């Protein structure tokens, strides 16, 4: 193999790269771009003409402006709190070695995959007047929303920053200490700057999740507060004010693109700054006590809503017991069919979503892991990367309604298809899988591929034997994460029909919609079942030891 040849890309390879990029892009374009464009079109082009004055009017409504401020402020505050609380936990879980660390690393991601409706109820039980934390007076306030946003997103920061921290060479910090710097000084001047890319990247993604939060804000904030997303929901489902909804959707899209580009920049900086090699974690020492204490407090705060749920599920009308769980066995008025049927439907949906998302994400990751020499090529890849992240931030309400009007005729006549919900879930899963697999592919030493090629392996063989072989484990782990997210997904899919009978989240919502006796207990018991399944999935996935999982 001559140096000249290795610098050229073969036409076949270019074609393959183009194809590999085209498939996931086509998926996003068909199932995200097209539905959203149709909804925006209905809103902005009433009677086929662009109504700019009307759109501007909708934008400058006092309520709209207030909600924009509230959304951004709330998201910024939640992001800052999340980052501060996550740092000690990231240190303890990724720099210290102790028994049970693996279990803790698995548990920290559980809030991320819990269904929002249920977490909302748990927090309200805690915060309501006369509740365990009622004295704080946080019920229906922004503080309650912030708590829930931190609860959901802390895993993103812990896992992203923890992974980076694990890869930091501790000798730089030790040298600073030896030269007389205090611990705080060494952390601020030596460690923190090196963690900055991962911290900024994670924070930008958390900001994105917070700015587009929906269910939990609706339940916890009380009707007085809100976000752009809850307003889009009210405008679309209650008022059928598509113009106002379209204006807000575009605004939200701008925020999302901004957050994504900050995250992408930070990731790029992190990529060049260091190569990830896990350094040996050390046993805890006495001087770690403050950090460990802080971590324990954070863990207790994370556990509080979960414990509240479990406790409530065990309370019956006349004391304590497992009656609520037994009632889920079916054969009664509310639940003619046993709950495991809904579990099975949920698992099938999740499985289908994963089967759609993982191959697409792998295609995209293989393309994105290339490092083109031309600046234009790199820019193109950056745009592709950004486009594939969009499903995390685009208004779920707009997508859900968009599905109804955009996917209604051949070749995409999917409104009554059993695959509609798996597709919606796959949209959300795609970026999660991509972010898990991509760092691993990028970390492959190019010399491995060169050696294989030099030994006579044809390109497909190199791809299969090196790229895909190395990506298999993180892909499997990401599939688990994607499945868990699909299990608890309440967002866009509540508007979509389910031909196969209810999923577990739908059963929970139905139970919560009925008055009387055991229904709340049953709904919460069903939520605990859902949480238990997601914990089980995450614990299995954690055994695969993929550090980039759930990291951004």
């Amino acid at each position, binding site marked *: 193999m001559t140096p000249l040849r290795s610098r050229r890309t073969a036409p076949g*390879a270019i074609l*393959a*790269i183009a*194809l*590999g990029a085209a*498939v996931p892009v*086509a998926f996003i374009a068909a199932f995200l771009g097209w539905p959203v464009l149709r909804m925006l079109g209905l809103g902005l082009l009433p009677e086929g003409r662009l109504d700019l004055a009307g759109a501007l009017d909708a934008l400058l409504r006092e309520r709209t402006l207030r909600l924009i401020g509230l959304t951004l402020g709330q998201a910024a505050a939640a992001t800052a709190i999340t980052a501060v609380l996550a740092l000690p936990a990231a240190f303890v879980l990724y720099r210290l070695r102790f028994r049970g660390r693996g279990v803790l690393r698995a548990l920290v991601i559980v809030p991320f995959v819990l269904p929002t409706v249920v977490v909302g*109820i748990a927090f*309200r039980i805690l915060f*309501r007047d*006369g*509740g365990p934390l009622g004295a704080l007076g946080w019920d*229906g306030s922004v503080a309650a929303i912030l708590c829930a946003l931190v609860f959901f997103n802390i895993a993103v920061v812990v896992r992203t920053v923890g992974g980076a921290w694990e890869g930091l060479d501790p000798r730089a910090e030790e040298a600073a200490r030896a030269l007389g710097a205090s611990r705080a000084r060494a952390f601020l001047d030596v460690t923190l700057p090196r963690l900055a890319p991962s911290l900024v990247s994670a924070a930008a993604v958390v900001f994105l999740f917070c700015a587009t939060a929906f269910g939990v804000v*609706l*339940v916890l*904030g*009380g*009707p*007085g507060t809100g976000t752009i997303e809850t307003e889009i929901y*009210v405008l*679309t*489902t*209650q*008022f059928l004010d598509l113009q106002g909804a379209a204006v807000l959707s575009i605004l939200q899209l701008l925020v999302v693109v901004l957050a994504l580009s900050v995250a992408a920049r930070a990731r790029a900086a992190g990529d060049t700054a260091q190569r990830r090699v896990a350094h040996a974690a050390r046993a805890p020492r006495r001087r770690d006590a403050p950090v460990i204490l802080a971590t324990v407090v954070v863990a207790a705060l994370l556990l509080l809503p979960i414990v509240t749920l479990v406790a*409530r599920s065990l309370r019956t*009308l006349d004391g304590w017991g497992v009656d609520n769980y037994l009632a889920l066995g079916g054969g009664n*008025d509310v639940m*003619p069919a046993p709950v495991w049927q809904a579990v099975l439907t949920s698992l099938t949906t999740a499985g289908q979503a994963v*089967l*759609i998302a993982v191959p*697409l994400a*792998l*295609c995209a990751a*293989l*393309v994105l892991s290339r490092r083109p020499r031309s600046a234009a090529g790199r820019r193109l890849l950056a745009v592709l990367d950004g486009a594939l992240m969009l499903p995390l931030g685009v208004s779920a309400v707009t997508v859900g*309604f968009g599905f109804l009007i955009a996917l*209604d005729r051949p070749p*995409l*006549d999917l409104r*009554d*298809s*059993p*695959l509609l919900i798996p*597709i919606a879930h796959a949209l959300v899963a795609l970026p999660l899988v991509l972010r898990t697999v991509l760092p691993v592919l990028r970390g492959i030493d190019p010399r491995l591929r060169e050696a294989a090629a030099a030994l006579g392996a044809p*390109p*497909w063989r*190199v*791809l*299969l034997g090196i790229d895909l072989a190395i990506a298999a484990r993180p892909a499997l782990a990401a599939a688990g994460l994607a499945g868990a997210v699909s299990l608890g997904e309440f967002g866009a899919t*509540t*508007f979509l*029909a389910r*031909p196969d009978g209810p999923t577990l989240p739908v059963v929970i919502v139905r139970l919560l*919609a*009925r*008055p*009387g*006796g*055991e229904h*709340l207990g049953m709904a919460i018991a069903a939520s605990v079942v859902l949480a238990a399944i997601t914990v089980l999935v995450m614990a299995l996935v954690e055994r695969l030891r993929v550090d980039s999982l759930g990291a951004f």
Partner: protein
Amino acid sequence: MRRTTAAISAASALLLLTGCASGGTTDDGTVQLTLVTHDSTDFGEGTLERFTEETGIEVTLHSAGDAGQLVNQLVLTKENPLGDVVFGIDNTFASRAVNAGVLADHVTDGAAPEYLLPAGAGGEQLTPITSGDVCVNVDREWFAEAGLAEPTTLDDLIDPAYADLFVTSAANTSSPGLAFLLATIAAKGEDGWQDYWSALIANGAKVVAGWSDAYYVDFSGPSSEGDRPIVLSYASSPPFEVTEEISEAGGEAPTGALLDTCFRQTEFAGVLAGTEQEEAAQQLVDFLYSVEVQEQVAPAMYVFPVNPEAELPAEWAAYAEVATDPFTVDPAEIDANRERWIEEWAAIALP
């Protein structure tokens, strides 16, 4: 060709997806109907199957979202309807569906006239199927213990004696919340309801996002978590707080509905304009009004049947109450003012 394997597998997955698109409504010989409805629809085990046995018409349920979302979905998909029949349009959203022209003319012969919509405003398109009164509920045990008389009217709720005791759900995010707003508009008039709501909020009424929140988290009833003894719910809620012990002893329900505070929500069925199976669709609407289905709606959906010949389950007969003179607002008036009312309401109730 580096990535061809992955690319081909993904491409074939995509083809598989599009290939799975559902077909039309007819399948050689048997007629197939799609019944578009909301998430809480339930006609009881095997009811729709019996319709298929009797008529040979197969019915697929297309259920998604709540009642408000249902109407908006129908309006948005008017050019290419989601199905042939709709059930679940209620009187607060009926005008929007009728005005958008998503419904074909058909009303079941002999449908209970007191539930029919006015002529020209849905009276020719929508057949009433179920009815439920949204009423203020009280925790009787709490009031007995506190030695306080239970409130009975809307005016009692702004009496300082009942300060900080009431929790309701928001009119802009919950369907009973909107019904309660309409009840106050009917009671206090277009010029008086704003003052009533100001007084209500000043008297410590709490507004939360949804019914489940209000009932399960804030209400003090036997199955709830909270400590407020007055809640916005349904007239059909009290029977569900009656345990076997209470009903065997012939005791009183632990909660009660205040029948002078009710707004009647009626849910309708109709034939969707553009269906190719108009006759079969009409048959399905008539079936939903038949005694057979009507006797199922109470236990399955916690609402009252509208067909006077349908009998209520024993427990309902003993404990369920119906408002004799519920508040009503003309559907056309609701449609004309809904957005403005909700905005004005939000300015008062959601500071």
